[in-house]
C-alpha cells in the first residue's frame, strides 16, 4: 500500500522521534509497564505506523465488502442494508415459562430466538432419570419430547422467526422436533430458518457436554448437514464454535485457530460422505466470543473471515462465493462477567458488543449483568438487549462498513492473528487432524495452560479486573436474581408420565426398533428420528438406542 521510499522516510522519522522527543517524555512520564501484551501474548508496540503493514496489499488482503477475501465483511451493504440479528440466548424452567420469555423478547425488539436447553436435555436424559435430579429446567428449558417443543413455540409462527438451538449430542432430535412443529403449523421445511450448534468437536475439549464418542458424533453431524442440504435449505446445520473454547480458557489466537480447524474437519467429513463442497459450505456458520481486549477481538473476527475464505478456496477449491463466506454469531464472553459490583458488567458487555459490530458480525448475543450470579432476570435481559439497540441506533457504529480498516494497529494485529493461526493449522495437520489432537489431549492442554496463566496474572495483579483484584468495595448485593421453582422438576416428571400413558406405545416401540436397525446399518438417521419424535418418543428413549450401539464418550482428563 505504501511505496518503499515513503516507508524509508517514515522509518527515518520514527528513529528521530525515538531519539529526540520520546526520551524527554520517558524521563518525566515513564511508561506504566516494561512491556504491554494482549490476551494472546502479542507484544504491543508503543505506536504503529505504515512500517508495520508495509506489505499489506489492499485488493489482496482486504478487498471490498462482499468480495474475496471478505476481510471487510460478507455483504456489500452490511448494516446499512440490515442490522445484525439481535438474538438473546434464553431458556429456563418449563416450556410455558420460556415461551413467555420468548414472547417478551420479541415484543421488546429482539429479532431472532435462541434456545438454552437444560442439562438433562443436553445430555439426552429424561427428567425422571437419576442424573436429572436437581437439574430439570435449572440452566435452560426442559424439553423431553415433541410435547414440550409444541408448547415452547405456541403462538410463534416458525416462518416469521429464525431460531438458534444450542444443542450438540441430541441435535438431530431437537431439529426433528422443530421440523415436526413446523409441519403441524403448516410451515414447509424449505421455509424453516435457523441454526443448530451441532459442533461436536469442541465438545471433546472445551464444552464437554457430549454424549457419544468422536466417530459416531461426527457421523450424526454429517447426517444433519446432508439432510438439511436436501430438505431444509435455509437451515444452518452447524455453528462451528469458538465461544466455548475461549470460555474454557483459550486465548484469542487459540480460539481462532482451533475453531477454524474444526471447520476444516467438518468439511472433510462431508466430502468423504460424497457431498459437493459448494452444496453444503454456504450453510456452515460460526460462533465466537467477544472478550475484553478491544482491538485484539476486532482483529480476530476480521482474520477469521479472511482465513476461512482462503481455506475454502485454496484447500477445498470451492467455487460458489457463498462457500467462502464466514457468517458468524458472536456472544459477549460470559467468563468476563464479575460477581463483584455486577452493574459494571453492563460496561464490559458494551465494549465487547462494540468489537463484534465494528468487525461485522451477522448476529449478536449480549450477556446480562447478573449472569455471574444466576440466570438473568427480565430487567437484566432488557438492558442487555437495549445495549445492542443503543449501539445500532445511537453510536453510528453501524453506519459505515468495517470502519477500523486501514488502522495500522488493526491491520497489523489482523495479519498477526492470521499468521499465528496458520502455525496452529500446520501443527494440527502434522498431528494427523483434529481427532488425533483430541486423543492426545493437545487442545485440552493448550487451553488448560492458557486458563492457568490468565488466573496467575489476575492473582498476581499483572492483570487488573475492576472490582475483583482492584477498586474493590465492601458491598451488599441487593440484586434480585432469578430462581427456578423446584416444582418444575415434579411437573416435568408428571408431564412425562402422562405422555407415556397417552401416546401410542406400540408405535413408539416400533419406531425405536426402526432407529436401532438404521443405526446399525449406518443410514442417515434424520428421517427415522423425525418419525420417532412425531410418535412422541422422548429424548432419553432415542438417545438410549444410540447409546447402546455407539457407547458413551469417556472424558480424557487433562489438568
Amino acid at each position, binding site marked *: 500500500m505504501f511505496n518503499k521510499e515513503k516507508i524509508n522516510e517514515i522509518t527515518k522519522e520514527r528513529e528521530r522521534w525515538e531519539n529526540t522527543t520520546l526520551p524527554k517524555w520517558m524521563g518525566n512520564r515513564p511508561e506504566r509497564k516494561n512491556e504491554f501484551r494482549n490476551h494472546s501474548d502479542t507484544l504491543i508496540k508503543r505506536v504503529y505506523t505504515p512500517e508495520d503493514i508495509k506489505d499489506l496489499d489492499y485488493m489482496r488482503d482486504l478487498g471490498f465488502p462482499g468480495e474475496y477475501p471478505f476481510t471487510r465483511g460478507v455483504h456489500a451493504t452490511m448494516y446499512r442494508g440490515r442490522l445484525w440479528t439481535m438474538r438473546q440466548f434464553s431458556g429456563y424452567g418449563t416450556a410455558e415459562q420460556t415461551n413467555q420469555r420468548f414472547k417478551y423478547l420479541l415484543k421488546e425488539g429482539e429479532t431472532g430466538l435462541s434456545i438454552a436447553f437444560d*442439562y438433562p436435555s443436553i445430555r439426552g436424559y429424561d427428567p425422571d432419570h437419576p442424573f436429572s435430579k436437581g437439574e430439570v429446567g435449572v440452566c435452560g428449558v426442559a424439553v423431553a419430547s415433541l410435547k414440550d417443543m409444541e408448547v415452547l413455540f405456541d403462538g410463534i409462527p416458525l416462518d416469521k422467526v429464525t431460531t438458534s438451538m444450542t444443542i450438540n449430542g441430541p441435535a438431530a432430535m431437537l431439529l426433528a422436533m422443530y421440523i415436526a412443529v413446523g409441519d403441524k403449523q403448516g410451515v414447509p421445511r424449505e421455509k424453516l430458518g435457523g441454526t443448530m450448534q451441532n459442533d461436536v468437536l469442541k465438545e471433546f475439549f472445551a464444552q464437554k457436554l457430549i454424549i457419544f464418542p468422536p466417530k459416531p458424533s461426527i457421523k450424526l453431524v454429517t447426517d444433519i448437514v446432508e439432510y438439511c442440504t436436501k430438505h431444509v435449505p435455509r437451515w444452518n446445520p452447524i455453528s462451528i464454535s469458538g465461544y466455548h473454547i475461549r470460555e474454557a480458557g483459550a486465548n484469542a489466537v487459540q480460539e481462532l485457530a482451533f475453531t477454524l480447524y474444526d471447520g476444516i474437519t467438518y468439511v472433510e467429513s462431508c466430502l468423504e460422505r460424497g457431498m459437493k463442497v459448494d452444496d453444503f459450505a454456504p450453510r456452515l456458520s460460526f460462533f465466537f466470543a467477544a472478550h475484553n481486549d478491544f482491538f485484539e477481538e476486532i482483529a480476530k473476527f476480521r482474520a477469521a473471515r479472511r482465513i476461512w475464505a482462503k481455506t475454502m478456496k485454496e484447500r477445498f477449491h470451492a467455487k460458489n462465493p457463498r462457500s467462502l463466506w464466514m457468517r458468524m454469531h458472536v456472544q459477549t464472553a460470559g467468563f468476563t462477567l464479575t460477581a463483584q459490583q455486577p452493574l459494571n458488567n453492563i460496561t464490559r458487555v458494551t465494549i465487547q458488543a462494540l468489537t463484534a459490530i465494528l468487525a461485522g458480525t451477522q448476529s449478536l448475543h449480549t450477556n446480562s449483568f447478573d449472569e455471574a*450470579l*444466576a440466570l438473568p432476570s427480565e430487567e437484566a435481559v432488557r438492558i442487555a438487549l437495549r445495549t445492542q439497540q443503543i449501539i445500532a441506533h445511537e453510536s453510528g457504529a453501524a453506519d459505515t462498513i468495517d470502519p477500523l480498516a486501514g488502522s495500522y494497529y488493526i491491520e497489523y494485529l489482523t495479519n498477526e492473528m492470521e499468521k499465528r493461526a496458520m502455525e496452529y493449522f500446520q501443527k494440527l495437520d502434522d498431528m494427523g487432524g483434529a481427532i488425533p489432537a483430541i486423543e492426545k489431549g493437545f487442545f485440552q492442554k493448550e487451553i488448560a495452560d492458557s*486458563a492457568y496463566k490468565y488466573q496467575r496474572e*489476575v492473582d498476581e495483579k499483572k492483570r487488573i479486573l475492576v472490582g475483583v483484584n482492584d477498586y474493590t468495595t465492601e458491598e451488599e448485593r441487593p440484586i434480585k436474581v432469578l430462581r427456578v421453582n423446584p416444582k418444575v422438576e415434579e411437573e416435568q416428571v408428571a408431564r412425562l408420565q402422562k405422555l407415556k400413558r397417552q401416546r401410542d406405545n406400540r408405535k413408539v416401540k416400533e419406531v425405536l426398533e426402526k432407529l436401532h436397525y438404521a443405526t446399525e446399518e449406518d443410514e442417515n438417521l434424520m428421517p427415522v428420528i423425525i418419525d420417532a419424535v412425531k410418535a412422541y418418543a422422548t429424548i432419553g428413549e432415542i438417545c438410549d438406542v444410540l447409546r447402546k450401539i455407539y457407547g458413551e464418550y469417556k472424558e480424557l482428563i487433562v489438568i
Partner: protein
Amino acid sequence: MQNERKIRVLIAKPGLDSHDRGAKIIARALRDAGMEVIYTGLRQTPEQIVETALQEDVDVIGLSILSGAHRTLFPRITELLKQKDLTDVLVVAGGIIPEEDVPEMKELGIKEIFGPGTPTDKIVQFVLENIPKRT
C-alpha cells in the same frame, strides 16, 4: 515426627454441568502449593465422590458446581460422608452458588463457599488453616 504426608485433596464436580475451568485451576493451584490433588473429572455422582474420598483417604474435598443443582446434590454428599464416617474431612465448595444459599450450605457442614473471583492463594490459605489434624 515422620508426618511428611502431603495434604490430600479431592477436587470433584458433581452435577451435569461441564464448566471445569475453575476446578482445573484450583487443582493446579493446590498442587503448586505442594498438595496431592486428585481430580476425577466431570459429572461425578455423590456416591462416586464419597467413594473416591474414602479410597483416596483425602483430607479435603473441593466441590465445584455451576449448574444450580447444589441444593439437591450437596445435602446428598454430606449425608453420605456422615454415613461413611468421614466427618473430619474438610469440605469446601465453589462455583455459581447464590449468596442466599450460603447459610444453608454451611449448615450442611460445608466449611466455606468460594464464589467467582476468589484468588487462588486465598483458597490455598484457607485449606492450610482449616485442615483437620491427623493423629
